């Protein structure tokens, strides 16, 4: 049932011209060279000149681990671009476990640790898009992604969402505008080739795409020869009994580039994310990374790696459960305030994952105007829905509120003020 994908179709001319650094190549060769080989080809500084002797990390559950001796020296030294090798191995095992990957998966696919998942996403879009290319995107869309796409002069083809994410019939219909599946699959220019979406707790709608719908979407992607950019930083931030089923787990064709992040579950500041997908595409991201950041902080990677080692799978899953409980509580707190202050003025669905409440204010045509003119005066700031639209000329009746950080008092105060702001406008 699986077809083989021609990855050249998804790589633009600039990306295709990236070449491997000869120094990196030699460094790889060195790992398999006979003992006694003397390597004067390296370009790295001498670790004995670095000033650190030890780093210690203490966790809230009482566990501690140290980086010292060779380990700290390593954590301060340049790494292979795909990542700190122990972490790459741990993450491959992690992906295999979480997404039920089969034994042949890693023959066709690879993993790269990135400076946050967004850097990998940015490089994937810069790898693939050319001027004038259409790209299918969920709408509303995370503005960080649209900010990458716009200057590339690619055209966003927005696909609307309901409370379960993008609607397959809308996706099919948008694609059919470009021609039949046979025609679209074979063209390189002027047709959409990429589909960008959040799988879980979408930003800003909070929607999670159920497994059945994902299968429908995946089938459409196969028919029209799309690559799915599965941007999933909230994967573990759900409020269900079991983890969602990902596009990666059903990817028989190897046409999914999946972006994972530790930002919402371990640390945002360490800048550790990872991309999993077809070797031909991940290698292009690798080459771009090689020329820019080189790799993400080795220290950050060593810390994450040591923590994963320290905890093992069981404690890690416990940690995720703790986070889920925590954010569920925060969500419920926000819903209570919303019910108290915004009933009759606004509408919303209960988020089943993620960090956001997506609030519709039927009585207002343009929430951006409302918050820009009245927000400071009334003392409340939320993100207006317009910021999440593909096109500048559209208006939105929505606000995005986040329940993750604000205190219960602030949330309540904020919604009371929002209610006043809305009433003042409608009056």
């Amino acid at each position, binding site marked *: 049932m699986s077809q083989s994908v021609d990855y050249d179709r998804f790589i633009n001319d*600039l990306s295709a*011209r*990236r070449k491997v*650094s*000869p120094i990196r190549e*030699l460094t790889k060769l060195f790992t398999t060279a*006979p003992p006694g080989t*003397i390597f*004067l*080809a*390296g*370009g*790295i*500084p001498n*670790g004995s000149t*670095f*000033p650190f*002797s030890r*780093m*210690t*990390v*203490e966790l*809230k559950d009482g566990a501690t681990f140290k980086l010292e001796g060779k380990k700290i020296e*390593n954590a*301060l*030294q*340049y790494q292979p671009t795909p990542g700190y090798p122990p972490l790459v191995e741990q993450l491959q095992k992690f992906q295999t476990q979480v997404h039920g990957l089969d034994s042949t998966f890693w023959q066709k696919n690879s993993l790269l640790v990135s*400076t*946050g998942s967004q*850097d990998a996403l940015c*490089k994937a879009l810069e790898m693939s898009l050319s001027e004038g290319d259409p790209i299918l995107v969920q709408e509303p869309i995370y*503005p*960080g992604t649209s*900010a990458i796409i*716009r*200057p590339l*002069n690619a055209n966003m083809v927005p696909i609307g969402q309901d409370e379960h994410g993008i609607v397959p019939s809308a996706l099919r219909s948008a694609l059919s505008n470009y021609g039949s599946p046979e025609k679209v699959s074979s063209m390189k220019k002027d047709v959409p080739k990429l589909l960008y979406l959040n799988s879980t707790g979408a930003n800003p709608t909070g929607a999670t795409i159920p497994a059945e719908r994902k299968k429908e979407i995946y089938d459409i992607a196969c028919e029209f020869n799309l690559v799915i950019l599965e941007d999933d930083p909230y994967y573990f931030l759900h409020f269900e009994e079991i983890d969602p089923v990902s596009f990666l787990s059903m990817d028989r064709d190897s046409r999914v580039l999946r972006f994972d992040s530790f930002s*919402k*579950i*371990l*640390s*945002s500041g360490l*800048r550790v994310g990872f991309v999993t997908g077809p070797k031909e595409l991940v290698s292009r991201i690798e080459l771009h990374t090689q*020329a*820019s*950041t080189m790799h993400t902080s*080795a*220290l950050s990677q060593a810390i994450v790696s040591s923590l994963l080692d320290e905890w093992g799978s069981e404690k890690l899953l416990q940690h995720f459960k703790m*986070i889920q409980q*925590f954010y569920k509580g*925060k969500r419920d707190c926000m819903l209570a305030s919303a019910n108290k202050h915004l009933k009759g003025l606004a509408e919303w669905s209960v988020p089943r994952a993620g*960090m956001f409440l997506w609030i519709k204010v039927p009585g207002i045509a343009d929430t951006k105007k409302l918050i820009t003119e009245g927000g400071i005066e009334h*003392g*409340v*700031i*939320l*993100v207006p829905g317009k910021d999440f639209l593909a096109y500048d000329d559209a208006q939105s009746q929505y606000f995005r509120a*986040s329940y993750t*950080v*604000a205190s219960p008092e602030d949330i309540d105060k904020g919604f009371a003020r929002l209610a006043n702001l809305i009433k003042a406008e409608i009056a």
Partner: protein
Amino acid sequence: MRKFGLLSKALPKLQTKNVPVEHTSFMNELALERKPSILRELMKNHATASKNVVFIGEGLPHPETIPFSEVSFTLKDGTKKVFTGSELVTAINYLPTQGNPKFVQKLRELMDRFHAPLRWEDRDVIATAGSQDGLSKVIEMSLQKGDAIVVADPVYSGLVSNVRPYKAQLISAQYRKNGLDTVEMKDKLTAIWSSRSKDVKIPKILYINPVANNPSGHVISDEQKREIYEIACEFNLLVLEDDPYYFLGFQDELPKSFLSMDTENRVVRFDSFSKIFGGGLRAGWMTGPKEIVRIVEMHMQVSVLHASSLTQAIVLQILEGQGWEGFLDYTKSVKEFYRKRRDQMVALADKYLTGLAEWDVPEGGMFLWVKVKGVSDVLAMVMERGLKKDVMLIPGHAFMSDPTKPCPYIRLSYSLVPMEDVEKAMQRLAELIKEEQAIESQK
């Protein structure tokens, strides 16, 4: 922007004027169309907003969900720092893209200390995930397919990796015995400006690695820097000063940077802590004209978001602990380490390679750039026969503006390998060269 008509040899030498450069002229369409990332800008606004305003828009993770309670580091000199509480939150959580504000301020102070006089009205600093990310983003800000860029040959392979996808033409001036051939640079630029041909692209950028040029180890003198800066002014070039070995020049005095003589605000400088605190940290920063820093900031807002918070917190702590005198002493100790190794390397080269090869004594950094005599192209020698002799070197092609041309150079690193092994490698290299010379003379 300076306008040039027909240039002739009679063109009077231009004085360096204090005319601010129009920076948008160095930006391609992609850069000009970048807009700030709304959510990252919101974070900035939140930091400066009144306490009476409730922000319930931002999607930040809650500190309670972070599993860390304490992160500490100990230095070899015994100093220890523990990050807990709010300091840990700053070290572990999202930051503004420009960087940890205290760290960014420290970097400005560092620049004032080492590169004064600087005018901060039209310049700024941004912390980057390694200095090369800053460099990469400025290249991506400026280049279009087929553009020309001025470099010194041999040139850092990382720069080549960034410009090759744009099919960039590299206009090179050679390093010679007494430094960079600025006459060659000026002649080539004059010829380009005089050319009527559509195929000849006028370069907008000059890339230079002025202290311990990777791979050749040359250090450009302060005087020659002034000459080069004048050329940049005359031909309206943006100067990309890539200076990761700034503290690893073997002279007693620290060099004067291009930035320190930048009266026209046309220098973008890339600094790094990689060679002194550790490349793994990804601790670099960029200093340059505000408009250019802003473009790089906007690109970073949608890619890396910001350099590692922990890295920034750690480096800030070290700099605060050492003070500038302490920092300078520390960098001197690192410099001494590499200078000693340079001496040992050069002695071994003298012993084994005299008559077989030529080299200039490296004036800084960690590399010896060797020209093999009697061999026109070392590629096969290094990549096939060298491997068979159990010695791995880098063929110079990686550092030439035209890597397809035959190249007789090799780069040897003296940073890591124990000197007994370096001696063995030199012996093998000497044999390798003799064998290669024999092969070549039979052709």
